[in-house]
């Protein structure tokens, strides 16, 4: 039975793997100062932004690609990547009607309607294709509350003081190899500012799509929640099926000021490569948030895509009484590799963090949890609870856990629980006997296993995530 079902896995398709035939403005591959100047010029950026990029580039040149993670891949040739690609369209759009119809069709295929009138769920959305943001919905409604939600390029032009104040404060240019690269060449992404005391009335969402071949996607997202504000932000991503590996190196920075709360949810579904491990996106992402006094940041991620994932959404709990949370489901199948987890850095007093990580490995894949809990010397009464569970399917895959704990204060309370399990023949037979087919039974068991994380997602996303889990794991049991 195992072989039969494992074979079926290879037949499960990535349904977002199409390419949209739109005219793009793509620059020649290669990376040097001129390319960076060109990107900056194309975006009409102020000179401080260009200087910042060039500085990051210099830092990057001196850095080495990290090798400590539990993944193996052929390192990208940074001179073979094109750093800018944009769907050709008129410079500014007055309404969505002016968006390239091919592009609108693409989003229809992806199940995303850009038409504000048609949207029932009330999710404001920014759409980033390749290197640029093509549309942002519900701007006006949000604007009435003083909320800024736009593409990063627009933010640099319209709100330079906000961008300049916060960019690089959470993830510095020299933070790591890919963060430095992103700082030099980032092309677009989303920017969001919630004013003091404002509760954002709808979910904000960015949808990322890589379309062009031979390009890298380097988006940069910055969310600033001013004192006492609240925002829930969602991010989704897909890419066409291609034989080559495409590089995605994003940086996300969150700033939660005193008493603010940010809920950041990701459903990551970049193309994972084919059943033989050919192609797929390299997802090397730096995500981090900083919490001031009484602030809270909650990361929720459902990771099903990408050939290689390297990602640790983290919280710096700087202010007293601040809270960090990390809820993660990471699924790997076929030859996918994921090294993901979080860092909870407790600096303030009475800071609390929770880590719930659910790894699922199938096929020949490898899935690692890597997490750091650090309690600083002044973090009196800091508490952490971590739970890291691994579920294995078949006997060709691997699950690994690398927890790091550093406590510098005697009052620290740190709990760590970990389990490894397999979907048992007993469980499957029990379901079968109740009339539930094996495929359905696996979906049921996996959803039950991930429930604590899926419950954290906003409703519409939770449904999408559940379906995604089912597709990613079709038949993968042994």
């Amino acid at each position, binding site marked *: 039975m195992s072989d039969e079902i494992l074979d079926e896995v290879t037949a499960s398709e990535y349904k977002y793997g199409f390419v949209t035939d739109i005219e793009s403005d793509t620059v020649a591959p290669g990376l040097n100062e001129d390319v960076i100047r060109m990107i900056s010029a194309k975006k009409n950026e102020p000179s401080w932004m260009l200087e910042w990029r060039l500085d990051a580039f210099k830092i990057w040149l001196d850095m080495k690609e990290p090798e400590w993670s539990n993944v193996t891949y052929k390192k990208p040739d940074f001179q073979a990547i094109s750093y800018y690609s944009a769907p050709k369209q008129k410079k500014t759009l007055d309404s969505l009607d002016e968006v390239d119809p091919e592009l609108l069709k693409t989003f229809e295929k992806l199940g995303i309607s850009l038409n504000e009138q048609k949207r029932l769920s009330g999710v404001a959305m920014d759409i980033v294709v390749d290197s640029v943001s093509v549309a942002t919905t519900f701007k006006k409604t949000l604007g009435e509350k003083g909320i800024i939600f736009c593409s990063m390029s627009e933010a640099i032009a319209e709100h330079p003081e906000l961008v300049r104040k916060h960019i690089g404060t959470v993830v510095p240019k020299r933070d790591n190899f890919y963060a430095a690269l992103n700082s030099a060449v980032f092309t677009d992404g989303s920017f969001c500012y919630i004013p003091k005391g404002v509760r954002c009335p709808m979910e904000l969402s960015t949808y990322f799509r890589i379309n062009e071949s031979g390009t890298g996607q380097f988006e940069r997202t910055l969310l600033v929640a001013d004192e006492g504000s609240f925002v829930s932000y969602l991010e989704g991503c897909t890419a066409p099926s291609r034989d080559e590996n495409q590089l995605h190196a994003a940086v996300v920075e969150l700033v939660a000021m005193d008493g603010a709360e940010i809920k950041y949810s990701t459903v990551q579904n970049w193309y994972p490569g084919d059943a033989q491990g050919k192609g797929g996106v390299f997802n090397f992402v730096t995500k981090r948030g900083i919490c001031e006094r009484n602030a809270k940041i909650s990361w929720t991620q459902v990771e099903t895509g990408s050939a290689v994932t390297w990602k640790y959404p983290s919280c710096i709990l700087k202010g007293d009484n601040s809270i960090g949370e990390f809820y993660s489901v990471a699924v790997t199948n076929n030859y996918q590799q994921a090294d993901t987890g979080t860092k909870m850095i407790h600096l303030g007093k009475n800071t609390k963090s929770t880590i719930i990580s659910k790894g699922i490995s199938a096929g020949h894949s490898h899935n690692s949890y890597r997490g750091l809990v650090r309690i600083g010397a002044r973090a009196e009464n800091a508490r952490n609870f971590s739970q890291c569970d691994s579920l294995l399917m078949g006997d060709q895959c691997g699950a690994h856990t690398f927890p790091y704990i550093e406590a510098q204060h005697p009052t620290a309370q740190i709990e760590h629980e970990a389990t490894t399990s397999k979907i*048992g023949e007993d*469980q499957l037979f029990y379901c079968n*006997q*109740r*009339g*539930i087919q*094996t495929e359905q039974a696996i979906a*049921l068991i996996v959803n039950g296993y991930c429930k604590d994380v899926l419950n954290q997602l906003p409703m519409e996303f939770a449904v999408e995530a559940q379906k995604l889990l089912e597709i990613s794991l079709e038949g993968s049991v042994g």
Partner: protein
Amino acid sequence: MIKINNLHARVEEKEILKGINLEIKPGEVHAIMGPNGSGKSTLSNVIAGREDYEVTGGTIDFEDEDLLDLDPEERAHKGIFLSFQYPIEIPGVTVSNFIKTAINETRKGRGEEPMDAREMLSKMREKSALLEMDKSYLSRSLNEGFSGGEKKRNEIFQMAMLEPKLAILDETDSGLDIDALRIVANGVNKLRSADNAVLVITHYQRLLDYIEPDFVHVLYNGKIVKSGDKNLAIELEAKGYDWIKEENA
């Protein structure tokens, strides 16, 4: 309803069933008793279609159809239900979600529409009341942290929801105190009708005080060595299994 003819089965290399003959008609309750290791649980697992049990000879017909060709879920769709001796835990899946999935997958297997949500809910309420289960049961993770009695009640609850034609109760009485036994038996009795049948597999006679069998069979060393009415069960309880063993030595 079900006709078992000269059934042989083994687990790994060991032959456990050595020629079982049994026929159950609609409306009947049969009990199979026997000492440990006689093959009782093997028989129930073979009827339900568990893969680890290899049928090496004989036939099982269910409503004149060859059962041995069917997958476990197809057998379930035909109306065969097994109440497990050791019900399995599925963390994070609620009782209500599990039974909803089971019912709708069964309906799908029969080419029927899914059950209306309201009907489902009222049925769940009705059947959980029948088993004297608190409402909070339905939102608990399936069998996770359940006591022995709760697990068995939950099995009969699922049976009540699925309304099988043939219910096999595999040692449903084990681990039950007297109150739970009464509740479980009461649940089974309420579901008896002229159209369905029950096969009770048990070690002891006490369950049969509550679920009265029409026929009692003694399974020993992979064969049915004696059949009779409910008095046979009483005789077994009084005399133990040793005389059976001696007779068949």
